């Protein structure tokens, strides 16, 4: 098992490297002189010269890459143009709140969605199933920002339960989570996966064996079907966790909540390229990490991966 985990982590290294290269070249494809791009329009000629020298912009692309890679490896992501502070420091401050939102949101929405999905599968074809199906299909078709805008309108403007703007220091921290989490729950992303995995597994031959043993319907549903459906469900939860990083871009904008997504959007608005580069890298790295975590948890759940072969 340890070797499986190691193998999975090591296999992510080339991907991470690829992500770095992609961002590195993407930034170089932005029209304009790289030094001016990275330092912003207000930079002095002197600053530009220093930057050129330190980043080897006069040298070959290969050497530039090595310099950038060294910076990346040591956690130096450059300096933000608009804030004049190190990008890594700013990301470090913003990251916990994004990860918090992703974790809390994914956990709460997953619990609710899996519950509804199991209920739908159990009542297959009857009204709870049909209702849940309609709701989740509609939920999946609603843009996140759209749900968010209505949550904000209703809960902040009409009911006044949650703040309209979350990044003010006087607001209790838990209140900033309510809006985004409600929005994530209303997306109902996991309901259909749960339902279809459950139904698929209910068709398996071993369910018939359990039935022939005299196992009750409830036990078949929760122990045998859910026990097996858990594997695809966990995979989906992992996927949702990874995409919650992207969701943060939208949610943090809607609810004006501090986090890496908001950092990115603000950076794009003012063309703060070092910040864009840094946040893009970190978001991608977080997605890779979420995927590794998912694979490991799946492997721990599934004995066919955990325990291999006879001898």
């Amino acid at each position, binding site marked *: 098992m340890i*070797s*499986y985990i190691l*193998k999975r982590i090591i296999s992510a290294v080339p991907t991470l490297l690829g992500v770095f290269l992609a961002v590195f070249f993407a930034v170089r494809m932005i029209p304009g002189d790289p030094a001016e791009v990275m330092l912003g329009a207000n930079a002095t000629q002197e600053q530009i010269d220093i930057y050129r020298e330190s980043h080897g912009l006069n040298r070959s692309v290969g050497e530039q890459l090595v310099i950038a890679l060294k910076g990346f490896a040591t956690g130096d992501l450059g300096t933000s143009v608009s804030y004049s502070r190190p990008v890594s420091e700013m990301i470090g401050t913003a990251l916990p709140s994004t990860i918090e939102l992703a974790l809390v949101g994914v956990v709460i929405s997953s619990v609710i969605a899996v519950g509804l999905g199991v209920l739908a599968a159990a009542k297959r074809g009857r009204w709870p199933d049909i209702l849940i199906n309609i709701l989740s299909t509609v939920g999946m078709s609603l843009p996140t920002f759209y749900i968010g805008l209505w949550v904000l309108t209703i809960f902040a403007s009409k009911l006044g339960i949650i703040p309209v703007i979350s990044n003010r220091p006087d607001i209790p921290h838990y209140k900033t989570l309510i809006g985004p989490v409600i929005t994530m729950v209303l997306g109902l992303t996991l309901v259909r996966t749960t339902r279809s995995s459950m139904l698929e597994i209910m068709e398996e031959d071993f369910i018939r064996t359990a039935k022939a043993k005299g196992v009750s319907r409830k036990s078949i549903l929760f122990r045998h079907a859910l026990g097996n459906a858990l594997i695809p469900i966990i995979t989906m939860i992992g996927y949702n966790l990874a995409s919650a990083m992207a969701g943060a871009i939208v949610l943090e904008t809607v609810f004006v909540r501090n986090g890496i997504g908001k950092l990115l959007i603000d950076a794009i608005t003012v063309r703060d390229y070092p910040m864009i580069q840094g946040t893009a890298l970190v978001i991608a790295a977080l997605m890779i990490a979420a995927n590794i975590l998912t694979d490991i948890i799946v492997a721990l759940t599934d004995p066919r*991966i955990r325990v*291999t*072969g*006879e*001898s």
Partner: protein
Amino acid sequence: MTQSTNTADQLLLKAEYLNKKFSISTGRGFKKLSYYAVRDLSLEIKKGEIFGLVGESGCGKSTLGSMLLGLQKPDSGSILFEGKDLTNLSSSKLKELRKDIQTVFQDPYDSLDPRFTIRQIMEEPLIIQGIGPAEKRTEIILSLLDRVDIPSDFLSRYPHQLSGGQRQRLCIARALTLSPRFLILDEAVSALDVSVQAQVINLLLDLKEQLELTYLFISHDLSIVKFMSDRIAVMYFGRIVELADKHELSRNIRHPYTKALFLAMPEPDPDIPVEVNHIEAGVPSLINPPGGCAFHPRCPYATDRCRKEAPELREISEGHLVACHLACEPIS
């Protein structure tokens, strides 16, 4: 390794020292494990015979079949079809040769493209090989459908509209469109219902006589192989362990595995009890094959020599080859 052959020109296919290795990832660590699906296997198939190949699942019989068909390349060894080596032909020569070697697979539901009509299915090999014009192709198709007893008004139907037996007969007809001389029948009747199986077996036997074909008949079912074939090879763990004329094989079994296979065949007769076969349950793992003779862990007669030394396939009497150290005397 000498197999008794009368004259060289009677030989249709000769395979020598074929090896095929597969590797599988273990999920544990980075190492990939590999095993031999076919190992040092040699065989000769004569013109006009039905060569039966029998063995249990995983013994490498299908891998052998697909190498002889040219679908997989052996890691080493040669396959001579009428003197031409299949393993290193140019692609145009190989395409030419494909006309002579055709195949029928096990699953008639899987071997027909569901989006093709019967006509398209039958026409495809002719188009690929540039046989035409269209009227000529239609003529060939109609005569073959007639041979396999599929009504000609089925031409515009789709495979899902046919029964299992009809599908398999269609697969046979398709294999015959290019007038091949050699047919590889890989479990060709195994997926069929009993009552339909007999029809297809008879059809295959008739076609063989009418069209002077040679068959390689691969199956796990010993009684069908024995019924169909002139000569039978028994495979175990990637090797041929016994090869003989079918009459010789029923009179004079020399390999303990062959004997076990014979005994295990359930006979449709209430007065013949299912034999308590004396071979042990556990089939050894492919990845860690036992040393010496691969059969020794299951063999009731195994000696020290069997555990250490892998037996060669030796000719013990005219046309009867056995790979067993103890093959000098028949097994009681």
